[in-house]
């Protein structure tokens, strides 16, 4: 149990996917303009990450031992198609949920955070429950980063920012400072692990 909690917290804050591994930067810069969009994007990410963890675990356990060189292709194709099917199912079963998350799903299917989760999970040889915990942690971490970033950017809109700093440059500097703040978590749990 302690292990699972550790995996969750490590993925969420200590090694935050976006701010310390640079995974999922496209949505981080693209959709962090408004708070509610950022939050919904985060939720959609958590959802796809969970699907990914299950798919990757299944592939690693049953299929890939027979064909290790197909790992990358198998991950991408299976994850993309499963997300597509789940998307169709949600559209039928719960239109409200689809309204909230649907438009983001195709965008994040081949996002590097998704593939990164599958690969890290493979490298560390996580079992089923550990993978789920890792995916949840990663998703919460991504959501946290997105929401923080959106909060700062909304505030920044009202400030007088120098011309040359506008746009991407400003976002990167903000991300750098957020990332520095998250480095404060480094060393957390080092005594336990």
């Amino acid at each position, binding site marked *: 149990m302690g292990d699972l909690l550790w995996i969750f917290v490590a993925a969420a804050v200590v090694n935050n996917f976006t701010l*310390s591994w640079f995974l999922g930067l496209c949505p981080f810069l693209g959709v962090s303009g408004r708070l509610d969009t950022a939050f919904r994007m985060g939720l959609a990410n958590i959802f796809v990450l969970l699907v990914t963890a299950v798919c990757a675990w299944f592939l690693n356990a049953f299929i890939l031992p027979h064909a290790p060189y197909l790992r990358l292709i198998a991950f991408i194709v299976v994850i993309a198609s499963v997300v597509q099917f789940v998307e169709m199912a949600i559209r039928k079963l719960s239109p409200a949920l689809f309204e909230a998350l649907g438009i983001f799903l195709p965008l994040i299917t081949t996002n590097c955070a998704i593939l990164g989760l599958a690969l890290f999970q493979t490298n560390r040889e996580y079992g089923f429950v550990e993978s789920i915990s890792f995916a949840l942690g990663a998703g919460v971490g991504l959501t946290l980063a997105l929401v923080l970033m959106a909060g700062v950017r909304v505030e920044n809109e009202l400030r007088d920012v120098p011309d040359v700093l506008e746009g*991407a440059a400003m976002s990167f500097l903000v*991300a750098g400072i957020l990332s520095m703040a998250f480095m404060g978590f480094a060393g957390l749990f080092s005594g336990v692990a």
Partner: protein
Amino acid sequence: MAAPPTTVNEDFIRGLWKENPVFVQLLGLCPALAVTNSAINAVAMSAATAFVLCGSSVLVSSMRSIIPKQVRITTFIIVIATFVTVADFTLMALLPDVHKELGAFIALIVANCLILGRQEAFASRNTVGRALADAAGMSTGFGIALLMLGGIREILGSGSLFGVSLFGDSFEPWIIMILPPGGFLTIGLLLVVFARMERRKGGAS
């Protein structure tokens, strides 16, 4: 934007600076920031990306008439993933140290939106020669950007370049530059410098 370039030469030049994939198009940021804590990693990453980008551009462009429109993205991704797998295994066999250092980021070249973007926007619509020139230009531009980031971060963060110490023992390295925040800060400040240069040029003419 100007009229579409017509010569192979222009296809190549475009990617170097004017449409630089990292600094102008902001594509492929994940590898550009994650592995550039030293110049040598930046070179390895650019070489692997160049191989994948050129290989997939040539293949996609030569198959462009037989790829059905509806499944083109899927086809591109499978082509790219194949080349990445080749690059991954080649690096593992030839340079195991570099492979270990870059870790999962070699495999993550698949998710580099620069490569998929070039297939969709260029390789699938142009002849093999032009697609190769475009891919080579974009890869070189990507390499230039990575080398700048890696060079700056290694010089400031470790006081060395390609592992050769530059300043002697009295230099106190800025550890932050080789840690994740350094990546964000370096690219942010570089973008500020470029915006400033652009403004100067615009003001002068």
